[in-house]
């Protein structure tokens, strides 16, 4: 029950994030992509890993956030980055809330298909409104105001973006961490583990799920907004199945319901994809596919699940202490 206490190794991801900034100034564009994906996977973890809401449509909220930031910037209505992200969270959260009310009475494959179709509808709507959203070609060269009015977002090195994204991820992570160890988070875990028992102990299950889904959607919106800001670009693909499926794979690969699965999954998936693709631009998918298959076959619940199993085995071998 004392799992909420911080442990020493929890500082490691953040140290690594800062070291990365100094050690690999040429990789910060990739680094931004990585941080955005971690945040997106983290938002999904809250819904899928903790509350057991199986969704293949989380890019709906990611895209809503990205378009909020993108359209406000493109028409020069609002370009300040921090408040921009708050607006993204607000819009995405509102969509999450409304769709949650309708969808969260279903489960399993039905829920999966419904989330997927809602996302596809949004994508189609964005395509139909291409005059405003830029459609497939997107909204180019978004103007993003300097951070705190001082630090410009650099197109070539993405250094300001990287630190900003790291800070945003840190804040969001703290929020999620507090949430999952709170009584609310505990009851979400209960819903995931056995929903009918939660009904039987008098838990307002649907209300909890809607609240959770809304928060998760808002965080996904922040991730999407962050993508629009760090790349100064947004197009239809932010609402696509590609992105929704990738984040799901990233989370399962790392291990869902574990807080750090989003980190591990994103780093391994994206790094493998990025560097394999540099060496074998035409054949990298083979390596990626093989890794996914192997992890699925030999690990239960992703890489962190595998690590946990191995650790237990090691402890057992040492004998009970």
């Amino acid at each position, binding site marked *: 029950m004392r799992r909420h206490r911080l442990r020493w190794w929890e500082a490691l991801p953040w140290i690594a994030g800062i070291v990365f900034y100094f050690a690999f100034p040429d990789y910060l564009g990739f680094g931004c992509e990585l941080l955005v994906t971690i945040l997106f996977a983290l938002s999904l973890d809250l819904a899928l890993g903790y509350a057991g809401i199986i969704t293949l449509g989380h890019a709906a909220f990611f895209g809503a956030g990205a378009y909020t930031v993108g359209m406000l910037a493109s028409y020069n209505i609002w370009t300040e980055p921090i408040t921009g992200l708050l607006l993204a969270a607000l819009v995405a959260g509102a969509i999450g809330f409304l769709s949650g009310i309708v969808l969260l009475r279903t489960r*399993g494959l039905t829920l999966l298909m419904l989330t997927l179709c809602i996302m596809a509808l949004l994508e189609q709507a964005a395509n*139909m409104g291409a005059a405003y959203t830029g459609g497939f070609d997107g909204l180019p060269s978004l103007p993003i105001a300097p951070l705190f009015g001082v630090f410009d977002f650099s197109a070539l090195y993405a250094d300001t973006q990287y630190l900003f994204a790291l800070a945003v991820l840190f804040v969001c992570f703290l929020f999620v961490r507090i949430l999952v160890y709170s009584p609310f988070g505990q009851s979400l875990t209960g819903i995931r583990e056995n929903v009918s028992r939660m009904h039987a102990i008098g838990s307002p299950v649907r209300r909890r799920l809607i609240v959770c889904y809304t928060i998760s959607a808002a965080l996904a919106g922040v991730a999407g907004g962050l993508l629009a800001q760090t790349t100064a670009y947004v197009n239809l693909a932010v609402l696509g199945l590609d992105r929704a499926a990738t984040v*799901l*794979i990233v989370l*399962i690969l790392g291990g869902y319901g574990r807080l750090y699965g989003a980190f591990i999954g994103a780093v391994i998936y994206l790094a493998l994809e990025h560097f394999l693709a540099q060496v074998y631009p035409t054949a990298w*998918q083979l390596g990626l596919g093989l890794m996914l298959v192997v992890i699925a*076959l030999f690990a239960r619940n992703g890489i962190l699940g595998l690590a946990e199993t191995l650790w237990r085995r090691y402890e057992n071998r040492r004998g009970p202490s």
Partner: protein
Amino acid sequence: MNFATDIAGIVLGGLAAGTVLFIVSVGLSVTMGLMGFVNLAHGAFAMFGGYVVVLAMNRAHFGFGVALAVSFIATAALSVVLERALYWPLYRSGELDQVLFTIGLIFIFIAGTTILVGPEHQTLQLPAALSGQLNLGFVRYRTYSVFLIVIGVLIALGIWLTFERTRIGGQIRATVDNRRMAESLGINVDRLFTITFAFGSGMAAIGGGLGAEFLGLDPQYPLKYLVYFLIAVSVGGLGSVIGVYYAALILGVLDFVLTLYLPKGGTIFIYVLTILILLARPQGLFGRKEL
């Protein structure tokens, strides 16, 4: 054009489109319903089958029918190997591990096809008898569409009879309804899985070959059409063959008529229809149990 021929055109066009969807998806419905296995890689078997058909016709100069038969056998054989070697250990895993595995498999199929055959799309040259138009008496229509509809009816009927009238069909139905009960009745569920999986993959292969005229065929196939297969299965109801058949036909015809009269709506209709149907009937049109 008068009203009657309009209607005939719509119905035939929609039924043909629905039939393609049915043939590719039916195997997925049965395997997901029977084994509870989320096999997102189902389209990969359809693609594999389609490639076998095209390569058999273009390189080995087989006839269309022979190529389809070869493709069914080759794909079923491949699927048995994969099922016994890779799928089987994951039957007891969570559905998310299955998602991870099958997406990985899709990547392997995509990359493998690209490396072995090439990234370009393959064209299938239909036999002369199936191209062009056919006079149905009341209307002239695309020969191949009519052919597909007839084949679809035969396949649906065949599978339905197998399910209702044969021993193995009864075993499958019993297992879909209650796996534990079926096991305690002495049904060899493992063997049943393998047979069903092979059959479902074989059907996907036939669908890949028959549908190539409409859906095309390239390494992206398993991802491109995944959503449509899932829609057909979920709207029809897991494990229900007849459900998938009707769902595919209903979606095919409705989508056809809506795109015909409201083309500005783009692909929006299929999603709207799916949402409405699933909200009204979460278990699908013909499903008996929750998805």
